[in-house]
């Protein structure tokens, strides 16, 4: 193991951090925004409303993200009408394709997490909102959503970490984020240990920063004394078709 190479490649790979962060955070935000209305539809008692959303989350959680990315990046070009539309400028670009794939994937997971959070809001909270005369939209915005979000915060951390790691797949469509840069560097130097380990150190740094950041947020928002640190800092992998 060449320690000097390890250090220099850590520095080199650090230039991939911004792209990794942009991909992960942007798709996290888009996924979150999409998931809120979807989760309410999914939590609806009306089958005709909840089933289409279930179909979406089932397919996106039941297939590998890599396939989803390739369908968007390579596959959509096969459709003539997309090729000839304005959309093509966006859909031929690996960055936008990655963003789209990650966002849709994240929205599917977050929708299911949120649905659980919505269903876990104590009925009494909604009773009180109704009794005071709130409209259904006000009940959702001011009462159900904030309570649900606080409830799912611990599991939402898993989604953040999962997406941070999943952003490494962007390297398969030529993007030079941390993993992409490291693959390029390895092909030039053929020193896989030092370089991939350097990349691993960067990811580990990012995931721990986000984990502890969310812990702090949790403590502040949930207004609770700091929890006993879990034996392992990093949360468990995101839950698949759990419910």
């Amino acid at each position, binding site marked *: 193991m060449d320690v000097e190479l390890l250090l220099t490649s850590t520095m080199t790979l650090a230039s991939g951090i911004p792209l990794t962060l942009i991909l992960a955070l942007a798709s996290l935000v888009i996924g979150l925004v999409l998931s809120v209305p979807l989760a309410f539809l999914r939590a609806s008692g009306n089958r005709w409303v909840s089933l289409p959303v279930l179909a979406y989350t089932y397919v996106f959680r039941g297939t590998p993200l890599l396939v989803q990315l390739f369908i968007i990046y390579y596959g959509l070009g096969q459709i003539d009408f997309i090729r000839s539309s304005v959309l093509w400028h966006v859909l031929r670009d690996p960055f936008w394709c990655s963003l789209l794939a990650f966002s849709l994937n994240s929205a599917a997971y977050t929708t299911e997490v949120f649905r659980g959070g919505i269903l876990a809001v104590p009925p009494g909270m909604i009773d*009180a909102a109704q*009794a005071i*005369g709130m409209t259904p939209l006000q009940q959702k915005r001011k009462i159900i959503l904030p309570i649900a979000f606080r409830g799912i915060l611990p599991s939402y951390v898993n989604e953040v970490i999962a997406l941070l790691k999943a952003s490494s797949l962007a390297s398969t469509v030529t993007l030079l984020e941390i993993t992409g840069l490291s693959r390029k560097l390895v092909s030039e130097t053929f020193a896989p240990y030092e370089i991939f380990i350097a990349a691993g150190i960067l990811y580990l740094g990012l995931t721990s920063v986000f984990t502890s950041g969310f812990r702090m947020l949790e403590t502040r928002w949930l207004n609770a004394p700091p929890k006993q640190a879990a034996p392992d800092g990093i949360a468990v992998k995101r839950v698949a078709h759990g419910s």
Partner: protein
Amino acid sequence: MRAAMASSLPESQIAPAAGGVQARGIEKRLGNIEVLRGVNLDVAAGEILAILGSSGSGKSTFLRCVNLLTLPDQGDIWVHGEHLRLRPVSEDDSAPRILDHDQVRRVRASIGMVFQSFNLWPHMTALENVSAGPVLVNRLTRKAAAELGRRYLAKVGLSDKAGSYPRHLSGGQQQRVAIARALAMEPKLLLFDEPTSALDPELVGEVLRVMTALAGEGRTMMIVTHEVAFAREVSSRAAFMHQGRIEEEGSSREFFSNPASPGLRRFLAAHDERHS
């Protein structure tokens, strides 16, 4: 059929000017259980009605029917002289429906409700809990609502807890905030659904004191409670529910000192035993 339901009692029999609440023929089935089997009950403006009954008698369900948190399957309700527009269950629809959501929201906003389990919103401070309704429903400015909120928190003796979150308050304090939340809507009617049942015995007193003070202000109140002594002290009228029906009702004096029905006599006797 529906028309027949709504006009089962001619509107002329209810004087709209009377205010208060009139309920006629309220029926409710939850699952396989007939919780309410035709409840008729009136509360005049300014009256304080205590509703007693063993658990499962349907008294809480009835109270929830007044502001339509639970929709009655059959029957008619007038609140402040206004007939609530509902569609009862029928052969082609197994669930009752609200026909006029605006009316229901308007009526709900004019009725304050205090719950057994407080139901404070955990993500809001005491003051935010109290002023949320005035801002969102009554469209007050934030400043005016906060002022109003402080006034009502002071009224329940919790001025110093304005910035506290519910989880940092005792049960008694939470229930007092919940009462302030109901008052801040400046309602014409207050509903209390077993407001002390979830409290530790030593915390019951502070909540009952606040409620007694409210009773002295000439408010219209419906109180579902197990606190017989308290009900006797504050109510002007009382009703006893048993198996989904009103078994006895009357002025408080008659009701408590001279109960007519065997059921109520048993209920009051059992209560005396427990508390002697």
